[in-house]
């Protein structure tokens, strides 16, 4: 039996069309897009085609608004540090939220060591940012607001449009980390009203090691990587053409399937949540019941620890992710779960189940069956469970 992958958020499988395009590209030996000869020109053409496809996926006004990077993490670093450095003359204040990805948090911590000031707004029990809190946090020194679109741990989708209205009105730039949502659900940069938006190829079945940064025309973050004039001088270094070709094909398919893909995921999500509630006692479904990524469910299974659940499932060839401190190597519970009010012990017992276009209903059913056994096994040896049940 093949492993059932319910950990898409960690790694999406590459689509066969993407694999084929990349293998063909490897065999073809493309030139360097920066070269003036025919080989170079052909490479430029291929690069531009991929850019058009990625731009269409997020509805850019022009393909030139997409910069290819090495990852969602690089895109986020580029957006935040690039704007901070470019706008330092105007001010050194940045606004974010308590539940951002580490790429955002650590970029901001780095800037704080360079005398930037950061305000981090809290979220409610569903993980939602209140746009009024952003408006209240704005000062004359504020240069950037960075709030993620879909949360990679609990799935909550932030009110990006409302926040963008505030930043537009106040003349502040707005970046959104949309790594977990682009390709999973329709994302339209013009409709959202953001100035910068980070995305990753692997989240929509493209290769990892390639990402994209949307930079609205007229916005100029300083480059993170200096060197040649690639990417219109915004990101130096010879392009990862093979990866970018794969990303382009994946973006094209994600665009065509944008409605069906999220509809398929939403049905699986409903089935999964219903099954969890029916089969296991003492669980908490995290995140917003409505404003949420369709392909991800976060569940805190009380009285047991996440890594041991993952190991039990792995024995039965099912891959899921956990946010427990033990598994992360960070020796601390997830800041996202603590921010929405989970107790430490409940945060430790949290699983993130994520899926995609090739996940079947039978995969969800099999997972529920195996999980129920694992939970019973682990609760039987849990001092927290015995204590709770003894009253």
């Amino acid at each position: 039996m093949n492993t059932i992958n319910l950990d898409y958020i960690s790694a999406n499988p590459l689509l066969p069309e993407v694999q084929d395009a990349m293998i063909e590209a490897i065999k073809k030996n493309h030139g360097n897009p920066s070269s003036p000869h025919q080989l170079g020109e052909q490479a430029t053409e291929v690069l531009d085609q991929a850019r058009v496809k990625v731009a269409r996926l997020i509805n850019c006004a022009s393909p030139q608004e997409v910069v290819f990077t090495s990852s969602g993490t690089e895109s986020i670093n580029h957006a935040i540090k690039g704007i901070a450095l470019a706008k330092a003359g105007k001010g050194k204040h940045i606004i974010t939220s308590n539940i951002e990805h580490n790429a955002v948090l650590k970029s901001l911590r780095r800037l704080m060591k360079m005398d930037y000031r950061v305000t981090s707004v809290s979220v409610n029990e569903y993980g939602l940012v209140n746009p009024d809190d952003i408006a209240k946090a704005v000062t004359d020194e504020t240069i950037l607001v960075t709030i993620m679109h879909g949360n990679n741990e609990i799935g909550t989708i932030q009110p990006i449009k409302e926040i963008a209205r505030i930043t537009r009105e106040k003349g502040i730039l707005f970046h959104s980390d949309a790594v977990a949502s682009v390709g999973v659900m329709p994302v339209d940069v013009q409709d959202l009203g953001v100035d910068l938006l980070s995305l990753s190829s692997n989240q929509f079945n493209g290769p990892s090691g390639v990402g994209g940064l949307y930079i609205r025309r007229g916005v100029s973050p300083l480059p993170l990587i200096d060197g040649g004039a690639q990417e219109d001088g915004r990101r130096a270094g010879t392009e990862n053409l093979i990866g970018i070709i794969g990303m382009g094909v994946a973006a094209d398919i994600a665009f065509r399937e944008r409605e069906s893909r999220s509809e398929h995921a939403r049905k699986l999500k409903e089935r999964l949540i219903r099954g969890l509630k029916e089969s296991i006692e003492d669980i908490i479904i995290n995140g917003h019941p409505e404003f949420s990524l369709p392909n991800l469910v976060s569940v805190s299974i009380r009285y047991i620890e996440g890594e041991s659940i993952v190991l039990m499932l792995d024995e039965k060839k099912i891959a899921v992710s956990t946010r427990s401190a033990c598994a992360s190597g960070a020796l601390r519970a997830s800041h996202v779960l603590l921010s929405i009010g989970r107790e430490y012990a409940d945060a430790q017992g949290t699983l993130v189940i994520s899926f995609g276009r090739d996940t079947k209903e039978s995969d969800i059913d099999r997972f529920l069956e195996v999980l129920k056994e694992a939970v019973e096994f682990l609760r039987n040896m849990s001092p927290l469970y015995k204590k709770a049940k003894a009253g």
Partner: protein
Amino acid sequence: MYSEVVMDHFKNPRNVGEMKDADGIGEVGNPVCGDMMNIYIKVKNDRIEDIKFLTFGCGAAIAVSSMLTEMAKGKTIEDARKITNKSVAEALEGLPKNKLHCSNLGADALQLAIKDYEDKKAGKVKTPPKVEDKHEHTKGDTCRCPYCDTDLGEAMEFCSNCGKEINSSH
């Protein structure tokens, strides 16, 4: 990630359960850092006649608990005292570096259970055994986990073991 011995003890843990009439109980850990262990011992003629455990924790924590109970079962108190974190980790054919604190927890729980037994025997009033939750720096300026000696990093907001806010106790 884990050795075959660890996986065997994780999948088929020995001596699981609560002991209602235990002669000694050792409780260690904290859900904040992800694991809690309770060790129960039954002592007869100065020998650990029976031993049980309940553990909330990762695969390593469960395997450590199971291996520890196997090692201690049937031993005299004196010999059981010699069981260390190192000997448990060795019997498990090694643990990943970031999981060494699990073996420390296990050894601590056993020693606390023995102490609890001896205190009771000596007629001392039973006080719940508890790991001291002080937060101190053992090496230089960086914050290290008191159990595994891991550098907790610049941005730790609370100690992974005692759960105290680092800002408030620094």
